[in-house]
């Protein structure tokens, strides 16, 4: 096949995912951004730039930068030792510990916000620390989520690290500390840089956690976009912030891609033997323990609080989930929202899986020319973009561009699943790409020379390797979709809400029963995503969550 024909074939296959991305991502986001730039029918760039000089905007930008930086550093400080302990040291209960510490990544932000509030709020056990509504709480929440990213990314790399250079250094007289500094950390540097970039990215775009813990006193760029859009209807300001965010995030993604030059979490990899815990492991074990407290503390207090009413144990909060709450807090019972959430998550899962598989297959096929390689790299980057765009921007963009002719999809039952599928798409692609890229193309060629058609070659070469990652990606997408709040909150109708949206409404309404129901709902939601994630964890797919 000639180069031109191959490029044409590539473009044809890319057409479906590109069309979906175009209609459901580029169109809404540019529609939203366009409204900011053309407020009164004519281009007003100056107005957008003026937004960035407003004091509250500058505060939000500064707040985002410093909380994200501190949270990234802390997540590294706790996550690196934990990655070492969980992947290199033989401690009892290691598998369970690892599962507990990696689950927070998919816990819905609303749930975590509620849990932290319970722990440090006015009547919580840690109220005396005076952290309620303080930036410390927000940073702690960010670390809660993102230490698991560090553990996954760096732990995977650490586990497959060739132990021989370290042994060589030790044989040359280096102490364990010197081995760590001179051999191990330099070898892990790509993984650490990659993890830090991703963590910073997640911190800088965190929405639910800042909204629930920051209240009105503190806002980040993301929550500021939300406030400007929904409360103040200042689309110009929101557009300016969205563009700023998109630029910064694109730069971060490029940096992460550069740091990733060294191998992704591979498929065929060596496993280092675990070592017995030694005295020198003390600090690492301590850091792991602190992280464990940070993760278990809020969740435990959430579970306990959901089961207590007026100082006594009770399941009344859970039973009340069959009602729409007190004082007409909701239009439908919470159980309806649960069913609705599950239904939407199923739709979002098959959509993101279908798109993700196509994209992953596209970007991992062997390129025959430089232009083809470039085209595939551009496609790869393009489908990472949803990671960088504020879910709020996406959600509101859906409303303004897809809510009226020619694309009136506002009442389509697939609108929310599509939005959630796009949010989950980068995660799905990142799970599948390293696995597909790890398959030696010559295996497929070997099958072909033995007489296997392309489909049969796929069945004998790709399928045995990819079925587990596909399941893992499905679980991952399902969990993300269940907990998605930012985009969904714009798109749900009050008579068909999702569980995270219902929880947020219940917190906002006065009344002990409503709050109790929010707690019970949070436990149900958290338990469901955690269960899905634990199943995914059992599949042992190294690339899950490494981004």
């Amino acid at each position, binding site marked *: 096949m000639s180069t031109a024909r191959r490029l044409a074939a590539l473009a044809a296959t890319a057409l479906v995912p590109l069309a979906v991305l175009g209609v459901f991502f580029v169109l809404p986001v540019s529609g939203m951004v366009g409204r900011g730039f053309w407020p009164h029918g004519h281009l007003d760039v100056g107005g957008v730039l003026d937004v960035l000089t407003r004091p509250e905007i500058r505060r939000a930008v500064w707040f985002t930068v410093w909380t994200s930086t501190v949270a990234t550093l802390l997540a590294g400080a706790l996550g690196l030792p934990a990655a070492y302990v969980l992947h290199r040291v033989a401690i009892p209960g290691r598998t369970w510990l690892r599962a507990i510490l990696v689950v927070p990544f998919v816990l819905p932000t609303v749930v975590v916000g509620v849990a932290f509030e319970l722990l440090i709020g006015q009547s919580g056990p840690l109220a005396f620390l005076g952290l309620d509504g303080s930036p410390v709480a927000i940073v702690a929440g960010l670390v809660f989520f993102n230490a698991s990213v560090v553990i996954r990314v760096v732990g995977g790399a650490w586990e497959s690290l060739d132990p021989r250079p370290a042994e060589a250094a030790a044989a040359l007289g280096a102490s364990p500390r010197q081995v760590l500094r001179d051999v191990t950390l330099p070898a892990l540097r790509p993984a650490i840089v990659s993890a830090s970039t991703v963590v910073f990215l997640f911190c800088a775009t965190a929405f639910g956690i800042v909204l629930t813990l920051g209240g009105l006193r503190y806002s980040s760029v993301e929550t500021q976009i939300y406030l400007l859009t929904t409360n103040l209807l200042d689309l110009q300001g929101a557009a300016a912030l969205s563009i700023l965010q998109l630029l910064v995030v694109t730069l971060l993604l490029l940096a992460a891609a550069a740091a990733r030059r060294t191998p992704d979490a591979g498929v065929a990899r060596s496993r280092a033997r675990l070592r017995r815990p030694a005295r020198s492991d003390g600090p690492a074990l301590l850091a792991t323990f602190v992280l464990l407290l940070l993760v278990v503390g809020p969740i435990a207090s959430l579970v306990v609080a959901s089961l207590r009413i007026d100082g006594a144990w009770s399941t009344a909060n859970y039973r009340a989930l069959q009602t729409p709450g007190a004082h007409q807090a909701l239009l439908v019972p919470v159980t309806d929202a649960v069913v609705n959430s599950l239904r939407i998550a199923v739709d979002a899962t098959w959509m993101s899986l279908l798109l993700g598989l196509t994209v992953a297959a596209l970007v991992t096929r062997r390129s025959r020319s*430089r232009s083809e390689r470039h085209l595939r790299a551009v496609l790869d980057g393009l489908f990472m973009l949803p990671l960088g765009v504020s879910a709020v921007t996406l959600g509101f963009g859906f409303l303004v561009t897809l809510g009226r002719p020619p694309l009136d999809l506002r009442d389509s039952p697939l609108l929310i699943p599509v939005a959630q599928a796009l949010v989950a798409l980068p995660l799905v692609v990142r799970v599948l790409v390293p696995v597909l890229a790890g398959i030696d193309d010559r295996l497929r060629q070997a099958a*072909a*020379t*033995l007489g296997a058609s392309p489909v049969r070659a796929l069945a004998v070469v790709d399928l045995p390797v990819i079925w587990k990652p596909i399941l893992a990606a499905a679980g991952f997408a399902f969990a993300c979709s269940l907990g998605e709040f930012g985009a969904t909150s714009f798109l749900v109708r009050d008579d068909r809400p999702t569980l995270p949206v219902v929880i947020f409404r219940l917190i906002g309404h006065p009344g002990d029963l409503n709050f109790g129901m929010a707690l019970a709902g949070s436990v149900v939601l958290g338990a469901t995503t955690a269960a899905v994630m634990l199943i995914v964890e059992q599949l042992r797919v190294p690339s899950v969550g490494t981004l």
Partner: protein
Amino acid sequence: MAGTPALSVRDLSVSYDGTPAVVGAGLELDEGQVLAVLGPSGCGKSTLLRAIAGLEPATGRVRWHDQDVSTTPTHRRGFALMFQDGQLFPHLTVARNVGYPLRIRRTPRTAAAARIAELLELVGLSGFEGRLPSTLSGGERQRVALARALAASPRLLLLDEPLSALDAGLRQRLADDLRRILVEAGTTAVMVTHDHEEAFAVADRLAVMRDGRIVQSGPIADVWRSPADPATALFLGYARVVEGAAAAGLLAAAGIPDSVSVALRRSALSVADDGPLKGEVVDVRTTPGQLRLVVRTDHGELDAVASLDRRPAPGDDVRLRVDATRMARLPGRSASHQPALD
């Protein structure tokens, strides 16, 4: 089959991003014969093989008897390719790997089992049916890959450096096995290698490739006896190429007609008291079978051998006999052997 070769490749070219990897290659091979494509690494020989299999986008023609297969997709060409590192399916047992082509062809189960056993016996791996590829040694894996390729009953078997991943002793043994297996099965095969001894052990015909072009081809003994140019001679295992007056002197001493240059095997000169050439020993090295010398003669420094019972030392004067069957007259000079790529 005279006149109608089984495989014929005409003017085949492959290039990557404008960089030529194979340029205008032409090959012909009769049914049941084995052709070795010999060349240094990076010369394009593997690309040529993959293009014949239909795995590389190429211009030119590939024909099997009267059928033009240039545009036929790989899996319908009926050419099996055995990869350098085997490329066994890692999750399938040895039996299921070997049986894979049979399964594609819907061979009945009992017939397939019998054929698998037969092929494993042919490659000397009876009893390995249930093993996984990861539990096999490198040599065993290559044998399984060969059995799997043969199970496809290919019209043409393509072998991409089948032995080069193995250590020296094993390579020698497996090369002999490979020859026996190919002859027993009457397989038409093209093998690519960078090792001339491997080529001689396995093939009937030889094509020498350099810088993307086939520089010489023919029956293996012919190519061996008269290399097309000095670089080819050196690649075929000749130790040295001598030119000009020195070449004339050596050829005269051997009693064969004059030529521009001459390629010498290491054993072309041997120490003999009645030899026509005189020289001074510069270096002596002992090998298990003979002594290897470097001798300074009127024609420059040359390689020579001596039997182990002689004890020449550096500085000694010796007389040398010239063996005309261990030298090859070359048409060109070494300076002009590099063909330019367009």
